[in-house]
């Protein structure tokens, strides 16, 4: 089955992984900007990273017939450095006219701190001023529930936010309902130990339906499985779900959401 992985960090994966993804049916993917495993020291570090996301990775993906899209931001782990975060946010528009940019992301919270919230709000302001799509990272483990509620508070607090243009990622059993009820798109991350399994993701589709729901691998440099989306497809088929329903989650929904990206940016090619 053709599918899209809406959240995978290919900069930390090998070229062999692109080959495997292509053979498993991956036709397109989106790569949010994230933490590199260490805190970058300057805005130029991010400029180089954005160059990699908007120039090198699309070419590497294209060798295997995969369309590569991306999101730009400074991630929540580095948001404790507010002055650097502000420099990066001011630099992001330099890259927004690149053809594979979907919007601002993955912004969010990590440990639910005041500085993280400040930087989240400033990213959100940038996205709303420019009419960009937004991809949101929700925290891990014990911080997820409170952090997701805080993110929903901040989104609701900015009258310009259009829920149809926001994807809240890494939802689990205790956070999917409030995100869907508020009208947002949601992503379930199939990631060992700390997030969600293909079986639990299938449970949530059965419970809440497929509308505005996506699944992703969030494959990165940690313990993760870049072919986790096909695992979800297999689990849904094993339970007897129709291919039409499965395809809505892994193909139709990301296509529809990504299709809402700005295509009229000044200088866009």
């Amino acid at each position, binding site marked *: 089955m053709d599918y899209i992985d809406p959240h995978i960090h290919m900069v930390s994966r090998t070229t062999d992984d692109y080959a495997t993804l292509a053979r498993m049916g991956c036709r397109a993917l989106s790569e949010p900007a994230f933490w590199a495993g260490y805190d970058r020291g300057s805005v130029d570090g991010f400029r180089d990273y954005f160059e990699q996301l908007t120039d090198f990775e699309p070419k590497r993906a294209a060798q295997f017939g995969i369309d590569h899209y991306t999101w730009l931001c400074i991630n929540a782990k580095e948001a404790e450095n507010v002055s650097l975060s502000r420099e990066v946010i001011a630099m992001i528009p330099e890259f927004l006219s690149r053809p594979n940019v979907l919007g601002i992301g993955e912004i969010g919270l990590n440990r639910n701190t005041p500085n993280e919230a400040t930087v989240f*709000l400033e990213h959100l302001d940038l996205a709303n001023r420019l009419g960009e799509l937004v991809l949101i990272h929700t925290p891990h483990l014990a911080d997820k529930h409170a952090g997701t509620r805080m993110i929903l508070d901040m989104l609701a607090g900015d009258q310009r936010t259009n829920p149809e243009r926001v994807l809240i990622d890494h939802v689990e059993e205790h956070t999917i309902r409030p995100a869907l009820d508020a009208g947002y798109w949601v992503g379930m991350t199939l990631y060992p130990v700390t997030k969600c399994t293909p079986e639990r993701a299938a449970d949530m589709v059965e419970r809440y339906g497929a509308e505005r729901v996506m699944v992703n691998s969030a494959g990165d440099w940690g313990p993760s499985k870049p072919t986790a989306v096909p695992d979800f497809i297999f689990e849904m088929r094993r339970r007897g779900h129709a291919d039409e329903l499965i395809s809505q989650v892994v193909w139709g929904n990301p296509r529809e959401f990504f299709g809402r990206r700005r295509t009229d940016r000044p200088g866009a090619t």
Partner: protein
Amino acid sequence: MAKLNITDHARTPAPGEVLDHEYLPVRAKLLEVAASLDRVARAEGASADDPRRRQIDEALKLLLEDGDSRAERMQLLFSLPYDDGWRDRFGL
């Protein structure tokens, strides 16, 4: 050339079919939990006062409750509390 017919497997599971599939995996997971708790019990310095241990005990009790939202309730059990006055506290 004639097209190959592909079986449409979409259907509602028969009564008992879900348990047929889940029984052995659940047994294996419960055994893993039992063995993990045995390991904790054998470990030097293991304490019943450790809040993580109390949290695990609460989770085990939750498994015996009725309903079909155990996973959601367990997630909340392992979550830090949400304070709706957080913006005032942060000065935002």
